[in-house]
Structures are given as structure tokens and as C-alpha cells.
């Protein structure tokens, strides 16, 4: 991060977080807005938010209680969908796949991100070029990434199998997206390939924000770079690493396009995620009932919020570091 930006960042971070003091004594509070100005600023955004986000969420909750097979005459069936969900083998498998993907893969992501950032931080030649080159995949759309990796995983002429054959490991070549025990792992690798650059850049920024004297003090305390990494750098980076974990977690919960284009839920539902299952039940199956997919969406919505809140609470109180 260039020096001026760094200085600006510090100056801003030094300014008080919330400008108005806790208590304001009597008289018309100069900060209080007139109702009109407030409306002028807030109304457009809120109207749009209400109409196209809040109302749809409420409506999905409502739809989950109906059988919408016949659109003109919705049939109220109460919690029938929710009962049926828990016996829906594919839904349970979708939840398992998504949770496996969202809980385990972020460790891999954050670790690679940190490792790459440490390499750049250590002062490798062409660090600037590498930083930009490694960040490119983050900008590609999932459609493009899916097509790329469909070709890489191709059995006959895919890059992966060709490399294995070139190295003589013919036994290892397999239809990566075609076999149920490798398909999910393959998707995880592709998703990690796309997002590793983002984690790297965030870790690099956090590394640059570390106080260099603390590192120097550690060096004087007989710390080689390995000890410094373990005792000083990682502990001080923990808030950023936890933050990255949560971001990766949320990102992987929502993945749809990558799975849909590469495997459509994959061999034997091995890469079925909740998002693809909802889409499949709503738009791909030859039923017109939107009630059941709405029920799935509702259950999934509750699980996502619960998981996000859980992670946030679990990490928050150990995060109060100030340097």
C-alpha cells in the first residue's frame, strides 16, 4: 500500500468512529434532520429495498406454506412442505455438501491466501506484477471460470489429465467431474482457484498494517522468521484471518453458477448444493410448484443466518486487539 494511502488510512482510523457524542443536552438538536430532508435522502433507497428485497423475502416465507402447482388457485397446506423436506434425501445431501464446502474449504482458502501474501511481504522480485496476476481470477465471472475448468477437467484432453499422463501417473487420471467421489473436491479447487487472490490481497494489506517495531522487537527477542510468524504475525493477523473465513464461508454458501454450469448437481447428487437444488426444483423439474422450493429456501435462509451469527459471535470476543 503506497505511503500516502497508508497515511490517509491511519488519519481516518484515528478520527472518532461515531461523530455524535453519546448524550446531547437540551435545545433543538442541530444534528437532528427535518423529516423532509430525511425522506428525500432515505425514501428512494428504502422504497426499492422494500419492494424488491423485503417484500420478496416475506412472500417466499408465505409461498412456502402453499402448493403453487396451479398458479391461479394456490392451496394452503401449512407446514406440509417443511415436514416433507426433512425426509427429502436429496435436500439432506445438498445441505451436507454445502456445509462441508462452506466450513472446510475456507481453511484452505485463507491458508493459501496467507502463504502467498507472506511470500510477497518477504520481498520477492516482481512482487507488484505477481500481486496483480494472482488477483485476476477474482474478476472473472463464474460462467467463464466454469468453462475454463470444464476443459481443464476434461478426461481425454484436459490439462490435469494430460499433466498426469505426462508425468507417468496414468493410473491417477479420472473423469474428475464424472465420478461422485472427486466431483465436489474438483469444484472446491476451482472455487479456491478463483478466490485465493482475494484472500492474498487482504492478508498482504493486513501484513503491511502490522507495526514494524513489534516485529523488530521480536527479532531482538531471539526470534527467527519462523518463530516470528508463529508468535507475532499470525496472532496479530487473527482478526483479519477470521474475517476472511467468514467472508469465504458466506461466499461458498451462495455458490450457484459454478456448480450449475459444471455439474448440475453432479454424479449421484455428489455436488448438489442447496442453491442448485432450489433452482432445479423450481425451474428444471417438470412440476410448476414453487411452494416446495420456497420452503427449501426458507429453511436454508434460517440455517445461513444462524451459521453467520454463530461464526460472528464465536470469533468476536477473541478479536478485541488494539495496536
Amino acid at each position, binding site marked *: 500500500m503506497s505511503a500516502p494511502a497508508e497515511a490517509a488510512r491511519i488519519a481516518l482510523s484515528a478520527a472518532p468512529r461515531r461523530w455524535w457524542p453519546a448524550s446531547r443536552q437540551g435545545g433543538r438538536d442541530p444534528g437532528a434532520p427535518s423529516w423532509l430532508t430525511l425522506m428525500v435522502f432515505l425514501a428512494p433507497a428504502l422504497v426499492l429495498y422494500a419492494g424488491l428485497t423485503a417484500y420478496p423475502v416475506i412472500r417466499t416465507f408465505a409461498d412456502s406454506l402453499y402448493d403453487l402447482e396451479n398458479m391461479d388457485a394456490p392451496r394452503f397446506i401449512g407446514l406440509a412442505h417443511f415436514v416433507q423436506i426433512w425426509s427429502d434425501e436429496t435436500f439432506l445431501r445438498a445441505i451436507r455438501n454445502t456445509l462441508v464446502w462452506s466450513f472446510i474449504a475456507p481453511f484452505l482458502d485463507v491458508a493459501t491466501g496467507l502463504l502467498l501474501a507472506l511470500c510477497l511481504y518477504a520481498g520477492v522480485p516482481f512482487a507488484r506484477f505477481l500481486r496483480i496476476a494472482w488477483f485476476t481470477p477474482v474478476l472473472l465471472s463464474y460462467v467463464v471460470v466454469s468453462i475454463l475448468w470444464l476443459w481443464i477437467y476434461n478426461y481425454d484432453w484436459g490439462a490435469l489429465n494430460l499433466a498426469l499422463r505426462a508425468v507417468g501417473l496414468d493410473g491417477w487420471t479420472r473423469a474428475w467431474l464424472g465420478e461422485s467421489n472427486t466431483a465436489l473436491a474438483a469444484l472446491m479447487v476451482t472455487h479456491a482457484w478463483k478466490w485465493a487472490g482475494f484472500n492474498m490481497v487482504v492478508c498482504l494489506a493486513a501484513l503491511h498494517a502490522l507495526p514494524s*517495531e513489534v516485529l523488530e*522487537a*521480536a*527479532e531482538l*527477542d*531471539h*526470534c527467527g522468521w519462523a518463530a516470528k510468524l508463529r508468535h507475532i504475525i499470525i496472532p496479530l493477523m487473527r482478526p483479519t484471518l477470521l474475517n476472511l473465513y467468514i467472508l469465504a464461508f458466506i461466499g461458498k454458501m451462495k455458490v450457484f453458477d459454478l456448480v450449475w454450469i459444471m455439474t448440475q448437481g453432479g454424479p449421484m447428487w455428489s455436488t448438489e448444493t442447496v442453491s442448485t437444488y432450489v433452482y432445479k426444483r423450481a425451474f428444471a423439474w417438470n412440476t410448476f410448484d414453487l411452494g416446495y422450493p420456497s420452503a427449501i429456501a426458507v429453511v436454508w435462509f434460517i440455517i445461513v443466518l444462524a451459521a453467520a451469527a454463530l461464526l460472528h459471535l464465536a470469533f468476536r470476543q477473541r478479536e478485541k486487539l488494539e495496536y
Partner: protein
Amino acid sequence: MATVQLQDVCKRYGGVGSLAAVQDVSLTVADGEFMVLLGPSGCGKSTTLRMIAGLESISDGRLAIDGRPMNAVPAKDRDIAMVFQSYALYPHMTVAENLSFGLKRRGTPRAEIERRVNETAEMLGLTEYLARRPAALSGGQRQRVALGRAIVREPKVFLFDEPLSNLDAALRVATRNELTRLHRRLGATMIYVTHDQVEAMTMGSRICVMNRGRIAQVGAPLDVYRNPADTFVARFLGSPPMNLLPARLHRTPTGARVHVAGSEFPLTRWSDAALANIDEVTFGIRPEDMHLLPAAAPPQPAISGTVASVEPLGAETLLLVDTKGGEVTARLHRDTAARPGETVRLAVPASAAYLFDPDGRAIAADRVPQDEALN
């Protein structure tokens, strides 16, 4: 404890030809000595300290501790402790962990660590804060933890990088005395970097004044104060700084006389040999060495001028006088009755005068001064 030798040490950022931050510094810090590196910001004192600590690579020249060459030895193996200006405490560790971290890294047995940490905490009054994190301590307490971290290590050399600059005035004075007492008690070799001359004068067994990457002068505080090697050292030590006025010499059969600020008087302390082939000089006189001459005073070396402003400081009064050679400051008794606009004569005792050659280097006085009134 240990001696520290620097031999023609240089530090260049960038290629060989680029500007040297530190140029040919040669300095020997004796065992148990409290050496102060003094100088304005950017004079290379901190860079020198960091080179000793191993935090900066040495471009060329040799560094040795206890005779052992240190150039190639990494910082972690130099058995040196350093107190940083911003304390550099480990924010994620408690005070106890901060103190014991260095010892743990060197594999000191647990019981020994326990003993030394408690002993040092006791000495610095930190016992009740051992379980706290640095964020929960005041500036003074953090500073003492940083100090404790160094003491616990019982290193060969202590290094201090302007440790007091973040403290408020009262705390700074208290901590200064504590450091001096600590030095006496530990008898450790200490190298202390500061830009505050008061700290240098009061704490240093010897002072090394640095200017633009070079050593201007090394010596006991009072020696350096009394016999500044050049105009820079002269003005840097002493507050308000020494008055330096352009002057011209001319030789007379009875000895050399100096022409300064419109007055003229003989130079009794300099032999003709010392002043050989020098015409233009800089005349120096410290504000405290001058005193007001009443109108009837007998003729003696003095300079006259009109009072520009009077600054009563309570314990004494500063007088700013405009003379032909430039503005002069005099430190006089607090009840001095002088008012701006008056014309005054300020006595310039021969014993207190300094002469500097055109390059700013001091010209040594080689004759014993006799105080006589001679016009």
C-alpha cells in the same frame, strides 16, 4: 557487560554513490558506560543505534561487541535489548508474557524466568499489572514494561531509542532519574539516543553529538558544553544557544585584537601562532556568560546594542539585544531593569569567549586567560 566498538561505520540506502545516512562513524563505548547519541532528527543517530542492534545492515565499516565482530551476526543472536520509542510491546500478550517472551525464546529454565520476571516487576512497580494487556496500561506503565522487557533479559548491551519522547513532562523527568539510577545499579553498558540535550547532559557519562551522519564531538557532557568542537555543537548544547557573531581579526604589535559587533578588544587567550593566517572568524559567547555593564563601568571587552525585547522567565530574564553584528541573547538576573529601546553594554569576559574558524571549527585557546581590564 560489554564494550561496543564502531570502526568507520557507514550506512547507505541505495547504490554506492548515493547519500550516506551514516558516514565513517568510529566510536568506542566502554564497559558499563552510558553513552548518549545526541543530535537533531535525521542526523543518523537512530540509524547508528539500529545498526548496533542489527536491525539495519552495515554498508561498510566494522562493529564489534566485546571484540567479537558483529557485522554478519543477525540481530537475534547479538544478545542486545532495545527499548523502542513506541515501546513496541506485544499487543496480544499480557505484561508477564511480554517480559518472559525473550527468556522463553532463549530457553531459560522456567523457574529462572519466574524469578527474574517477578524481581524486575517488583523493581519497576509492575507487579499488579502482570496479567493485563498493554492496551489496558497508561503511557508511563507501558514505558516501564518496555524497560522491564530489556532488564529481564540481562543483555550485554542496552539500547534506548528516544524512550521518553512519548511521555508528559513530569513523567519524563521522573523516568530520567529512574534510568540513571538503574544504570548505576546494573552497571550495564547503555547506548541512549535522544534529540533532547537536557536528557543528554543529565544522563550521559559521555555524549556523542552527531550531525548529518557524522560524529561532531564525543566527550563528557561538561567538556563538550565548555569546549564545543564546532559551531554546530556550540549552538546545539545550551539553551538559549551560544551567540555566534561574525568577526574579523587584526594583528597589533601588542597581540591580536578582534573586531566584533562594532566593538573591538584584545584576545588574550590566543597566541599569534594559533591565529596564524586566519582573518575572518566567528566569535562565540554564551548568554549566561554576559552581564550588563553600568554606565560608569571601567573599560573592558564588551559589545553594545539596543534592547529588542525583554523575556522575564521568573528564575532569570532573557534580554534580546540588536547589535551591529546581529542579534545577541543574554541571560541576566531576574530583576534586571532594562526596557526595549534602551542602549546597553554587555560585558564579554575573555575567559568565556570562543573563536571558530571560517569552516566553523573551534580554534583552541593556548594561553592562560588573565582577567584584566584593557582597552
